[in-house]
């Protein structure tokens, strides 16, 4: 009768945390309604209901870590339950200020409806067991006597919430910890006498990078840079203001960019590539591709050219070891492509670029950027990058300083190409020039090497025939 809903194939990731539970026992759901939201790296992924029906039992709560195949909940597709009358609260819900609101409505509804927030934030497992023994038994007895309406509402009481007794943190920090679901007993205080400050909480939340146990714990300089916060200002005293919540993506990418910017000593090398020859070739391919529903953009060529450069200069396809005493050079070429979405910047990764041709890459780029804009990227889409390209090509500009997508060591920025007069030894000739801005981690790459890399890229882009070499 009931359908078990399990975590679908989310790629090779285990122990992905649940950041939201959208339903509670007794809720009616339609097929494809989001049930829970998983988060890993920079991706969030909703698990949709496979069938319509009524949620019978929920086996997970916010904070639980799940893997492919983990039981999420059971859905009763039958139509037996009485539907509660619409309530004032439900009618009013859109007006309730949603904490995590913003453009993404699904987050808002969780925060606005108390029943959808899991009881008790502690313990990844075992809440059921604790609840079962002491509470549920007695409650069932009582509920049984008063009929189904009562019984339906009886839930298991979660295990005791983490006790903050003995934690050195003031009441406001303790409340913030509760709001964010942070176990204060696991937070290290940086304040006087080990006092936990609000900054400690936030640093703890950013925490070790979610890439998994393989990645080093982030306790480096960025965790507590000692940089004084920018003092808060009451902008309203100068004129009207409006506070808009950041999108989820921006909230997640912000700390990552900040961490990269602070940890990596950046240098940006600027150059121009002559793509006068490449451009007509690209247009030809593009024209041929259009009937098939994809475009051939310069990005595909940049991917190919970059792979060629990465193979020649393996330092660019590496990462510093956690101990910073060796270089981990990667034997695969997965390239990230920064995609602008309405929710913010995401960087899906195109895998094995070295084994794909321009056509295949173009098709994949079309597909992946579409998914990115629709917010449908999976965790797999975002992991494993070795080098990143950030293209502002369609918009304009002369040059910019992209931020290295750590732990990668270099990122290539491109802006719009422009026809420029170029001296060919005897005269100025009009050439289509593509500005290239390569930011790199100076701990790994020296200026001379960067200059050689960019020069090589320019050479490859100048003569598209080299791309196939």
């Amino acid at each position: 009768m009931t359908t078990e809903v399990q975590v679908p194939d989310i790629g090779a990731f285990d122990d992905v945390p649940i950041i939201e539970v959208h339903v509670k026992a007794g809720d009616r759901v339609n097929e494809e309604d989001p049930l829970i939201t998983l988060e890993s790296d920079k991706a969030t992924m909703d698990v949709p209901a496979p069938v319509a029906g009524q949620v019978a039992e929920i086996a997970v709560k916010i904070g639980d870590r799940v893997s492919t195949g983990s039981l999420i909940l059971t859905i009763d597709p039958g139509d037996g339950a009485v539907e509660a009358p619409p309530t004032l609260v439900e009618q009013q819900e859109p007006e309730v200020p949603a904490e995590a609101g913003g453009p993404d409505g699904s987050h808002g509804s969780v925060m606005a409806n108390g029943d959808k927030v899991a009881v008790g934030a502690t313990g990844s497992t075992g809440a059921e067991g604790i609840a079962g023994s002491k509470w549920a038994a007695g409650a069932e007895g009582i509920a049984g006597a008063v009929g189904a309406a009562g019984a339906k509402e009886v839930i298991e009481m979660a295990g005791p919430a983490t006790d903050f007794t003995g934690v050195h943190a003031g009441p406001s920090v303790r409340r913030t910890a509760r709001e964010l679901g942070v176990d204060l007993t696991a937070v290290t205080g940086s304040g006087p006498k080990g006092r936990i400050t609000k900054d400690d909480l936030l640093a703890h939340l950013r925490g070790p990078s979610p890439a998994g146990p393989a990645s080093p714990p982030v306790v480096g300089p960025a965790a507590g840079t000692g940089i004084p916060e920018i003092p808060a200002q009451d902008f309203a005293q100068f004129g009207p203001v409006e506070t808009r919540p950041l999108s989820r993506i921006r909230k997640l990418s912000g700390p990552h960019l900040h961490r990269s910017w602070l940890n990596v000593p950046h240098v940006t090398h600027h150059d121009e590539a002559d793509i006068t020859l490449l451009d007509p070739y690209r247009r030809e391919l593009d024209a041929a591709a259009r009937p098939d529903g994809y475009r051939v953009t310069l990005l595909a060529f940049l991917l190919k050219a970059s792979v060629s450069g990465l193979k020649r200069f393996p330092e660019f396809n590496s990462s510093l070891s956690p101990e910073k005493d060796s270089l981990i050079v990667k034997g695969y070429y997965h390239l990230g492509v920064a995609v602008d979405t309405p929710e913010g910047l995401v960087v899906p990764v195109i895998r094995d670029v070295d084994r794909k041709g321009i056509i295949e890459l173009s098709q994949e780029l079309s597909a992946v950027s579409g998914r990115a804009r629709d917010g449908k990227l999976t965790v797999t889409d975002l992991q494993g990058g070795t080098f990143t390209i950030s293209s502002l090509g369609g918009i304009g500009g002369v040059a910019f300083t992209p931020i290295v997508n750590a732990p990668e060591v270099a990122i290539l920025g491109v802006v719009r190409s422009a026809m420029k007069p170029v001296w060919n030894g005897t005269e100025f000739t009009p050439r289509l020039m593509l500005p290239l801005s390569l930011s790199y981690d100076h701990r790994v790459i020296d200026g001379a090497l960067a200059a050689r890399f960019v020069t090589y890229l320019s050479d490859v882009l100048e003569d598209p025939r080299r791309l196939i070499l």
Partner: protein
Amino acid sequence: MAEIESPAARGDVHAGVLVLGAGPGGYTAAFRAADLGQSVVLADQRPALGGVCLNVGCIPSKALLHAARVIAETREMAAHGIRFGDPDIDLDALRGWKDGVVSRLTGGLAGLARQRKVATLRGTGRFVSANLAEVTAADGGVTTVSFDRAIIAAGSSAVRLPFMPNDDRRVLDSTGALDLASVPRRLLVIGGGIIGLEMATVYHELGARVTVVELMDQLIPGADRDIVAPLAKHIKARYENIYLTTKVTGAEAGAGTGTGTGKHADKDAGGLRVSFDGPGAPDHDVFDQVLVAVGRVPNGRLVGAENAGVLVDDRGYIPVDKQQRTNVAHIFAIGDVVGPPMLAHKATHEGRVAAEVAAGQRSYFDARVIPSVAYTDPEVAWAGVTETEARAAGVPYGKGVFPWAASGRALSLGRDEGMTKLLFDPASKRLIGAGLVGPNAGELVAETAHAIEMGADAADIALTIHPHPTLSETVGLSAEAFEGTITDLYLPKRK
């Protein structure tokens, strides 16, 4: 009365959040929930919001205690050169002032409810099911209220002693004592806790000869003995009798009926013959009135919790988690009904948590300490761990004590019996408990509660400049005493 209508609701009215009980916890929960966008119905049997605390508890008793304080101070000043005549007490006017204080506050609450569009229902609320309650008015009219979430704030009731002639109007509970119908010549207060001693303070100053009988071997059994000692000494010298470790074994009405009125009603009506069992207590004695203040019992069984599937334990408490949820996820409980200490300021904080969780926020009751205050003369107040508890639990502690005899401010008030005692964790030096006795101790304890919540250590408190000359200095000086840096006392070196 309620204006909320929803055609789809099953009850006469529908509430996003139904709050049962409009005491400090209940109205706080209702107001907070309304401020968070919920549609709220607040039900209470009293005509005025505010529950026991505002109507027949904390507030009216504080008004009367202030009157008592004025009487005491004018009398004390006689020894220092200012002599007034004996007070001429107009009981009706005093009662009127007290009632005015109450109605001003409860009227303010009604206004706050209106501004928030909280619908109030007068009557006794009971659950019918897990989503429906009925509120029965005094005239028998029933209003059904369906709800999405409910907060039980049903409070507590004074314990009645089975052997007392409880229908006799000379047998009072705290509510009756606050009515101030008359001042008896001899008053027996059964129960030497906070409520009993506060009422004893009032009636003593109004002219009654007071006897206090307490079952335990000290007054205010929750507080440390050394903190209570100055109070015990003060009242022992003034009251007729204090019987400790003594049981009241029976009581019977004397010749009168107790139905008389006026100032000397009790005299005309004969007395209540009360028998005792305890060292130092007589076998029996006769009193004009008896105040029973032996404790309060939770009202958990009075709200039909079983109809909603909400568990009530065998003492009448409703168990909740740190988010104030009962075993039924959408029903919360707060205040006296969830467990001791039965204090308004605990209930209001729990009420906020329940309302916030009901509105979808992740709130928890994470307060470390709930201060207690006895508004006696002198006042007794404490927060956090008491020395008695620390010893019993084997919690290590260090102590800093400052006797108010060395406080210029206390002496200039004509009082030297006070004491401030701070308990510290010996390893971290953080404040873990405080006990104070003396005039205004109830105000001083707030600083220590704040210090504990903030994790302040002895140096933090000692290095905070306290204004001079104030009683608050005694807190800073106690921390100095613990640190061994105090100059206002001479303490022999510890090591």
